[in-house]
């Protein structure tokens, strides 16, 4: 599997990264090299092996479904690039 410029453009769009067209070929080259290197995992027989997502899954716990903190709108907005009243503001989405 090789990644071409078109694929890079697609991944960049999924990742919301505005990678300039003139850089996309170089990025494709780098990604191909890395992916070719991880291909060695194909040598490993993983038949019947469950994926491991969390090493401590035995310790996972439930907690009471209660509010622990809140009412801190000003803290949450403190680093907002743009805000109005108690809201984050973004460019117009709906015409």
């Amino acid at each position: 599997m090789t990644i071409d410029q078109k694929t890079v453009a697609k991944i960049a769009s999924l990742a919301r990264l505005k990678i300039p067209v003139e850089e996309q070929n170089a990025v494709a080259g780098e990604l191909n090299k890395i992916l070719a290197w991880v291909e060695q995992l194909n040598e490993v027989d993983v038949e019947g092996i469950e994926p491991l997502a969390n090493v401590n899954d035995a310790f996972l716990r439930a907690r009471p479904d209660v509010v622990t903190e809140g009412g801190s709108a000003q803290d949450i907005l403190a680093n907002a690039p743009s805000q109005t009243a108690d809201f984050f503001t973004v460019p117009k989405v709906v015409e």
Partner: protein
Amino acid sequence: MTKLTDLTITEAVHKLNAKDISAVELTDAHIAACEKADKAALNIFITPTYDLARHQAKESDARRAVGQAGALDGIPLAIKDLFCTKGVRTTAASHILNNFVPTYESTVTQKLFGAGGVMLGKVNLDEFAMGSSGVTSAFGPTISPWSGTDPAQAARKLVPGGSSSGSAAAIAARIAMGATGTDTGGSIRQPASFSGIVGIRPTYGRCSRWGVIAYASSLDQAGSMARTVGDTALMLRTMAGFDPKDATSVDVPVPDYLAALGGSVKGMKIGIPHEYRIDGINPETNALWDKGAAILREAGAEIVPINLPHTKYALPVYYIIAPAEASSNLARYDGVRFGLRVEGENLNDMYAATRFAGFGKEVRRRIMIGTYVLSAGYYDAYYRKAQRVRRLIRHDFLQAFEKCDAILTPPSPGTAFAIGEKQDDPLQMYLEDVFTVTLNLAGLPGICVPVGLAQNGLPMGLQLIGRAFDETTLFKVASALEKGAGFTAKPPFTA
């Protein structure tokens, strides 16, 4: 008299308690040292907080005067700029968080300050902790206080290792007594080895990740760095513990790590994994490894050969799982709630322009890899496959620990390299992590202890790996290794 900046944390606590020195004196000496390092352009700090440190030191002296001093009261520390600090800018060494000032405190720093720790400032790192050199920082590379003895290379500026580059450099340069680090794939242990200091990454779940800016959540873990095993134990005892705010924090008691120090290793079994003898490794690394084994044998431990058959797959597994988790974690930087915003033609364009401008090259590279391996059609082939091999890697360790109590290995293939080296080829840089990522994937604790100097005059450490939640054994074996190695070398630059 020993310079205040040469004291260990343990010695300083003793002197503070004996009223030989005050916290203000200790802090002032370290601030003067920080300023000297700054003049030497080591680029250790992103945000120094000297006024805050002086204030904290004054309060510390007042607490001690009324007999209320905590375990680290008055000790000047450097905080990796990945830990959110309330009211103090926290950048993750990224432009995207240039002006981010948290309104909350990370659990780990809260615990350190609660025990009386003094913060000298927020120190440099690889951007979002993605790197093994400190070079990917948007604030420029951290310069190591070490420079080799080879005259042809004396002018080269070296990396202190990464990603906890500022933490390691600060401790080696004697401008901080200890520091926090984080370790996702080796980011505490490799810089500790390169800088001639001690660093421990505890078991996954031991320290709270709350308030630590996320890179790869199933691998990230905070730990302590200092100049002695005892100092890292003292710090970790304060930093560790269950935290309901972190869903993966584990509710098990934190033992008194200090009690383990200096304990006998007689009869303990130390495993030497055959698979870590890789081709092309610096022969000095293997010689140092043998020396470490000899030290522990001399101390009464039994050296046993072990096998970790899936070792060679750890690095490719890591470079699938870590970028996948990073691509998800870093989705939050969208120019809406915090951080940089670059305007665009519409909302989507604003996201994409913000993220391209805000993230550096290595971070973008990992987001791209992560997005690809998680994308429709490739998820099973890459991400699920990596997770399945990850289980085999953990199983290797579980089997090995039936035969031994701790595992001894090198932490990295060689000594510190020059700024700019290994930058052109990401794969070459990724190989830096070959001996460290294995235990992150298995969730195990690891400690790096300085053991000697290479021919080139640069420090080399050794790594000990332990069973989950058994940092106590690690501290015991590490202190035996430390004692036997007697590492006292100092870098050419000390403040």
